Every structure is written in C-alpha cells, then in structure tokens.
C-alpha cells in the first residue's frame, strides 16, 4: 500500500499548498477501485478520481505538516462533506461529526436530527454535514500527519 501511494504521489502533479502561519494543509481525493492482482485475486487500490460514477467509494485524505518553528496547539481540522457525497466512515475513532452544519459535534451514535414526524431521530451517515478532528497533543515542529475519511458518491 505504501508503495502504491508513493507511486500515486509520483504520478500526481504536486497540488498547491496554502500555508498561513506555519502549518500546511493539503486535501486529496482518491477513489477505491477493485482490481485483480497477478494471481487473479481481487485487490482494492486507491486511484486518482479520473473516473468516478455514482455509488463509488471515495477516500478523502488530509495531510498536514508543521513547517514553522513552534508547536501548533489545539490543532483542529474541519472538512465540510462535499455536496453529493454521503459520509461512510472515518479511519480513526477520534473524528467528530456534525449533522447540523458544524454547530454541534459528536459521534454519530449520539447525534440526532429532526425527523419527518417532528420528533428527533438518530442521525444516519447521510445526515453528516461536517467532520473534524481535534488533536489532543500539539503538532510538533517538523511533524506531519494524515487524516482520512470515506464517502460515497450519491
């Protein structure tokens, strides 16, 4: 997988990185595809989103790095769910979700939304509007990290 990613990275043009202060944040989208390996076994690989149709699984990758000379504290990364994308899951349990446009946050299991009958119902993945990560530890000078979540094209 790491080999694959380095290959991918080599194939992709370097995306523009916007840096304010001393932290860089980069967003990438990949699509999960099932391919056959040399032995004919199915294998899931991540590819650039060159060919994507409804129903396909995407992986959203956020790479951050602290390029400054001071630790970044209370480090929070927020990603609104793109339109036409249904949240699937996050690769780590530290992610918090919002189903109300980023006003309140929590795990999906504890979130509720107004139901069609006027009562509140348990939130579903399709209700997710935002995902965020609040890192408990500062991002040290020179440190980089990756956050990922998955979504499906509606």
């Amino acid at each position, binding site marked *: 997988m790491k080999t694959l990613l380095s290959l991918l990275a080599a194939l992709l043009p370097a*995306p523009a990185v916007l840096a304010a202060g001393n932290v860089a944040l980069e967003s990438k989208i990949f699509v999960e595809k099932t391919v056959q390996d040399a032995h004919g076994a199915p294998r899931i690989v991540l590819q650039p989103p060159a060919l994507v149709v409804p129903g396909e699984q995407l*992986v959203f990758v956020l790479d951050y790095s602290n390029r400054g000379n001071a630790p970044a504290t209370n480090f929070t990364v927020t990603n609104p769910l793109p*339109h036409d994308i249904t949240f699937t899951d996050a*690769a780590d349990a530290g992610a918090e979700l919002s189903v109300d446009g980023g006003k309140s946050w929590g795990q999906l299991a504890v979130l509720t939304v107004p139901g069609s009958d006027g009562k509140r119902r348990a939130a579903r993945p399709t209700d997710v509007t935002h995902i965020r990560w609040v890192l408990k530890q500062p991002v040290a000078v020179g440190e*980089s*990290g990756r956050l990922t979540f998955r979504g499906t094209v509606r």
Partner: protein
Amino acid sequence: MCCIRCVNVEPLRKPAFTGLGLLVLATGTMAAHATGTIAGTKIESVATASYSAMGSERLSVRSAVSSFRVDEMLDVTVVNSDPGDILAAAGAEGAALGFDITNNGNGQEQFSLTTVTALGQDDFDPQAPSIYLDHNGNGVFEPAIDALYVPGANDPALGPDQTLRVFVLAAIPDEAQDGQNGRLDLQATAVTLSGTAGLSAAGAGDDGVFAVVGPSGATASSSGRYEASAAALAFTKTATILDASGSQSPAPHAIITFALRAVVTGSGKLDALVLTDPVPAGTSYVPNSIHLDGIAQSDAPDGDAATLADNIVTINLGSVPGGTTRLATFQVRIQ
C-alpha cells in the same frame, strides 16, 4: 459505523501515511444507482485547520480545493408492462405489447431499440414487428398520436431515471392455433457505448466527462408474449309450451317460451355477436317478454341489448369471451 474500518485510533498522532493502509477492507465497487449525482457535477472538497502557536491567537489555514467531476454511467432496464399474455387472433395484427425503458444512468442518453422474434420456448414467431413511442406518456397505444420508431432517426433520449413506454405491434401467423404462444423481445441499448461493465470512453459523457458502461452492460431486454386466440360458438334453441290448462300442448292461446343459448368456447372472443329470431308464423309476440340472462329487456331500440322490430327478435350480445354462456328468452302466444 463499521468498527472494522475504524481501528486506526492512535495513528492520528503518528507521522503521515498510516491511515490509507487500513482502508483496504472496503468494498468500493461500481453499483447501479438510480437517482445518482448527475453526470458532469463537480465535487469539491476543502478542509480548514486552526491552531495556536506560542500562545498566539487562533490561526487558520485552508487547503486548496480538491475536486473532480462525476462521470456518466450508462445503464438501462426494460420491463414488459403487460399484465399477462396478449390475446391476438391468428392471421391478424396483434394488439400492442407494452415495454417500459428506464434510463438508470446519471446522464442524458439516447437508446436504440430492436426487436427479436426468433426465440425459443414458444410456439410461433410474431411477424413484422414495429415499435411505437408513447408520445403523450399516457401508457396507452394511440396509432394516430404515437410515433413510429425509426432506428437512428428518433432514438428516444431519456434523462436520468426517466422512463419511456414503447409499444410493439406484430402479426400473428395464420397457422397459429388457439392457445399457442409467441414471444417477442424488445431490446434497448445506449447509443453512446455498451458492452462489458466498466468499459469507458473519454469525453463521451454529458459535458465531456467519461461515459462508463454500467452493470447492465448499457443494454437490456424484456419479453412480451402473444397468445393466439380463436373462439367457437355453439348455439341451441329450445321451446317450452304452457297452455291455460297447465298442459304442454300447442293449443291456441298457449304460451311458447323460446330459449336461445349461445355458448362461446376457446381462449378468444367473438365480437359483435348478434342473435336474431323471427317470431314464428301463427304466433304473436308477447310484448316486453325478452329476457337476457334472466334480466328483462324492453322491446324498443334503446340502451339495452334487445329490440323487437318487423316481428324479429334481435339480441345484440356485443363481444363475448370464450368460456361464456348467454341465455336469451322470449315468449309468443299461439293464435
């Protein structure tokens, strides 16, 4: 959330490139999705990081926008809409077979239509099929309104999830026997591209995105079936006499009740079936004595089935399906 995919708790703090390896358990495959995101839609994602550095105020940084455009999946279903076999008389043009063509893709697509009649599992091949497009969407074949389909000239264009009813008319061979079946397939195929699922063509989709063949292979077909019908009529007439003394002799003033029984057999029907019976000489008709299946009929040429005119009883049975018996009675008095 699926726990199998959420095992990466601690790597949050690890240096980069740990997360993706854990995503290989996923099963992302191309699935048929009705009402999917419309082809050509641009999907954009952008993230924001906020933090403090050395006690500073909150700083924030936005990522560049990552984006892609949704490609066009080509997918179609065809479903025969008839409630059952369509009865059609041997040697005649059959009634319309109905088929619903649905664009299950996420873009605008034209479909070419073909019929196949040389199929197994039937008794005869419907002949000279022609296809009509339901012009006004009412689901009913209207020869004066619905357009004859001409391949390549008016291939129907359907938007995502749009359904079109088409009709196929074919003739039933002369030699088809009552109750025999003839099958006919209607096939719809995406004009842009069809074949193996996953086959793609750059720039061929809406707004210049890829066109991709969906799970159906971008082609689908469904069978309609004619049942050849024929019908036969068995007709009997009986007379019952009742005179004033209660005997059954044909004495003057005795009443004769005639019973006309029409028994229609076969899977077909007889159209415009009319029974006529002149009042016998030497008798006079008993006014308003006609009954059809036990229900009194008037003699006047009005809304009911019976009339008496020129001393002839006429009973208009209309269309009578096989398996039906109609019983008409009327009375005369011996003069």
